[in-house]
C-alpha cells in the first residue's frame, strides 16, 4: 500500500494540507502518515538579564534555569501538538481516509524530512507555515530545504483545496520534468484530470520533439492532453496559463540547480510557488 506523508504544524494551511492529503490518498488508495514536528526554539533566550555579573555557581544555576523554562514550554508545545494531531486524524477520517498514523517528533521538518520521507511515496506540505500571515509573499526557506531533502514527489498545498480537474505540466525536457511525465502516466494520482503540457521559451526542434513525445506518452496513458510552447518569463507565463485555463494543479520539476547557483540567480521554483495560487506538485 502506498504511503503519504503529511506534514502539519496546525497553521491556517493545515486544513488544506489534510484535504489535499485526503484527495491524494483516495486517488492512490494510500495510507496516511501525519507528522507534526515540535520546533525547537532554543535560540529564544530565557529572560534578559543584562546585569553582566556572574555569581557563585553561575554556570549550573543558569543551566538549571534554562532547562526548567524550556521544559515548561516544551510541555505546552507537546500538548498543543497532540491537539493538532487529533484534529488532523479527525479531519482526515471525515474526508474518507481510514488508514491513518499520527506521530509527533522533535526537531525541524527541514532537518529531518529525509528520515521520514523514506517510507513515503508522496509528501504533502503547506505552502507556508505558522507565520503565514505576516510573511505573505515570502516562501519559507524551510519549504525549499524540505523539497531538496525529498527523493519523492512533494505536493505543496495552497491555502484552499479546490476540486482537481486539470493540471499544467511545466515541461522543459529536463530530467525532473521527464520524471514528472512518467509519474503522471503511471501513477493513479493524476488519472482522470485534463493535462496541459506547457513549455517555456523560444522553442526549437529538439524541445518540440521532446514535447511531442511527452504528449504521446500521456495520451497513451489515457490523458486528454494539449501541448504548447509559450515565450516569456516562466513564472509569468505559467501564471497566465493557470488563470486562463482555470487550472487546479501545477506539476513541475524542482530546484534543478545547485545551491550556489541558487544563491546567485535565485530560484525559478520558489518564484513559481510564490506566484501561483494553486497547489504545486514538485519532482526532483
Amino acid at each position, binding site marked *: 500500500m502506498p504511503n503519504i506523508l503529511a506534514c502539519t504544524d496546525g497553521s491556517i494551511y493545515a486544513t488544506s494540507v489534510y484535504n489535499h492529503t485526503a484527495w491524494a490518498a483516495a486517488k492512490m488508495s494510500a495510507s496516511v502518515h501525519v507528522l507534526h514536528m515540535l520546533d525547537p526554539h532554543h535560540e529564544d533566550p530565557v529572560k*534578559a538579564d543584562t546585569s553582566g*555579573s556572574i555569581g557563585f555557581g553561575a554556570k549550573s544555576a543558569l543551566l538549571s534555569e534554562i532547562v526548567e523554562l524550556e521544559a515548561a514550554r516544551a510541555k505546552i508545545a507537546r500538548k498543543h501538538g497532540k491537539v493538532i494531531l487529533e484534529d488532523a486524524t479527525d479531519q482526515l477520517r471525515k474526508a474518507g481516509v481510514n488508514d491513518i498514523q499520527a506521530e509527533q517528533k522533535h526537531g525541524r521538518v527541514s532537518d529531518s524530512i529525509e528520515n521520514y520521507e523514506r517510507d513515503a511515496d508522496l509528501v504533502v506540505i503547506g505552502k507556508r507555515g505558522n507565520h503565514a500571515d505576516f510573511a505573505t509573499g515570502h516562501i519559507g526557506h524551510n519549504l525549499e530545504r524540505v523539497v531538496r531533502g525529498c527523493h519523492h514527489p512533494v505536493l505543496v498545498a495552497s491555502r484552499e483545496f479546490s476540486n482537481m480537474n486539470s493540471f499544467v505540466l511545466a515541461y522543459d525536457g529536463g530530467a525532473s520534468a521527464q520524471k514528472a511525465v512518467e509519474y503522471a502516466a503511471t501513477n493513479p494520482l493524476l488519472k482522470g484530470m485534463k493535462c496541459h503540457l506547457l513549455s517555456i521559451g523560444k522553442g526549437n526542434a529538439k524541445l518540440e520533439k521532446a514535447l511531442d513525445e511527452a504528449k504521446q506518452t500521456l495520451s497513451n496513458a489515457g490523458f486528454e492532453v494539449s501541448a504548447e510552447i509559450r515565450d516569456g518569463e516562466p513564472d509569468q507565463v505559467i501564471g497566465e496559463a493557470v488563470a486562463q485555463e482555470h487550472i487546479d494543479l501545477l506539476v513541475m520539476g524542482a530546484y534543478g540547480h545547485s545551491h550556489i547557483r541558487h544563491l546567485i540567480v535565485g530560484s525559478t521554483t520558489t518564484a513559481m510557488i510564490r506566484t501561483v495560487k494553486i497547489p504545486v506538485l514538485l519532482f526532483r
Partner: protein
Amino acid sequence: MTKNSYFQEWFSNPRRDIIAGTVVALALIPESIAFAIIAGVDPKVALYASFCIAITIAFVGGRPGMISAATGAMALLIGSLVANHGVQYLLAATLLTGVLQILCGVFKLADLMRFVSKSVVTGFVNALAILYFITQVKEFQGQDWLMYAMVGGGLIIIYGLPRFTTAVPSPLICIIVLTTLAITLGLDSLKTVGEMGQLPSSLPNLFFPDVPLSWETFMIILPYAIPLTVVGLLESLMTAGILDDFTDTESDKNRECKGQGISNLVAGMFGGMAGCAMIGQSVINVKSGGRGRLSTAASGVVLLILILVLDDLVNQIPIAALVAVMLMVSFGTFNWSSIKGLRDNHRTSSIVMIATVVAVVFTHNLAIGVGIGVVLSALFFAYKVSRLLKISSALDVSHKGRTYTVSGQLFFVSADRFAEAFDFREVLDTVTIDVTHAHFWDLSAVGALDRVVLKFRREGTEVEIVGMNEASKTLVLKIATHDKPGAMDEAGGH
C-alpha cells in the same frame, strides 16, 4: 540537538545578540586590561587581541554564541616570555600558536577531548579561578586601607545591584562609581589603568612581529606556543561543551580548533596576544540573551568603539575597580558544587581534580595540570578495570582435572593477579582454562598466560584453553610461546 544554517547562526536573534554583545564588551574591557597586567604587557596588546579574536571567531568559530578574547589562562603562560624576550616574541608565539591550533583542527585532534575527564575539567576551571584570585590578591601588596575599601565597595555594588535591577551591567556601574569617586575625591594614592601601560588610541595596524626569522627564535617561542595551543584549545572546547548544554545545540569542535587558530593568527598580526574562549564571558553572554554569532561579533566591535571613544576615561579607572571585577570573575568561574562533590564523589575523581588544581597552582601552567589529571585518570581507570578480573575454579567429578574460569580484562595491570590465581601444587592430569568471558589485551596478558601454561606442563599436566575470542586469539597466535614447538626448552630459561 538541531542544526542551524550559517545564516541562522548569525541572524536568528539579532536584537538580543547585540544587547548581549554590548554587555559582554563592557565586561571585556576591565578583564582584558587585568589580563594584560597579568601578562606584563601594555593593555592595548590585550585589548587589540580581544577585538581581533572576537570578530574573527564570530565568522570562523564552530560554536555560535561563545565569547573568545584575550584570556587569563593564556596570559598566565606568557609572563616570562614577555619579561625575558619582549612583546615582539609574544606576538611571534601567538602566530605560532595560531598555526599549531589550525593543525590540531585539520588533524581532528578535538576528538582527543574525550580523554579529558569531567574531574580534570573541574580541576581546570577551579585552578583557573584560584589563579585569578591569587593574581588579584597580589594587587593589594603595598596598598593602604583605601584599596581594600574601594575593592570591598566595588564587590558590594557588583553583587548587590542585580538584586534591585538586572537591566544595567553591575560591573560597569562598579567601575563608573569607583572611577568617579577616585577622580572627585582626588584619591591620588590609588593606582590607575593609565599607569599600567599604553592604551589603544587608534585602530590596530597590520604588521609582522619584529623578530629575527631564525631557528633560535623558533626555539624560544616554541616552548610557549605549545602550552598556549593546548590551554587555548582546552578552555575553548570546554566552554563550547558548556554552551552546547545551555543551548541544546551541537557545535563543530574541530572547526572551533581551526577557528581559534585563525583568530590567534589575526590577533598576532595586529599586535595582540594569544587568546581563547572565555568561560565566564560566555556564561554572561548566554545569560544576557546572546545565542548567535552576531553576539560574539558585537562584543568585539563595541569593545573597540568604547575603548577608542573612552580613551581618556579608561586611563583613569582605578586598579581597585578592575580587581573587584576580576574577583567576581574568579568567584563565578570556580565550581563551588565541586567542593560538596569532594565528599560525595568517588575518591579517585576527587584526587584527579585536586591533583590538577595543585599542579596548576604550583606551575601556573594549566597544560601541565591537565596533563597530570589525564594521566592520573587513565591510571585510576586501568586499576579499576583490572579489578574486574575474576577467576574461579572447580574440580572435575573424576578428581583428575580442574577447570579454571576466567572473566574480565587481562592486560598489564591485571596480568600478575591472573598468574597468581592458579594453584600449581595441586596434582592434576588436565587443566582447562575457560576464557570465554575474558579478553587478552596486550603482551603482558599473553605472557602471563604463557607462564601459566608452561608451568602446568612442567608438572606434567595437560592444559587446554577454551573459548578464546577472535581478537584475543589473533594476539595469542602472534606472540604466545606455549603453543609453538620448543616451548618447553625455553620455559626453563625464564
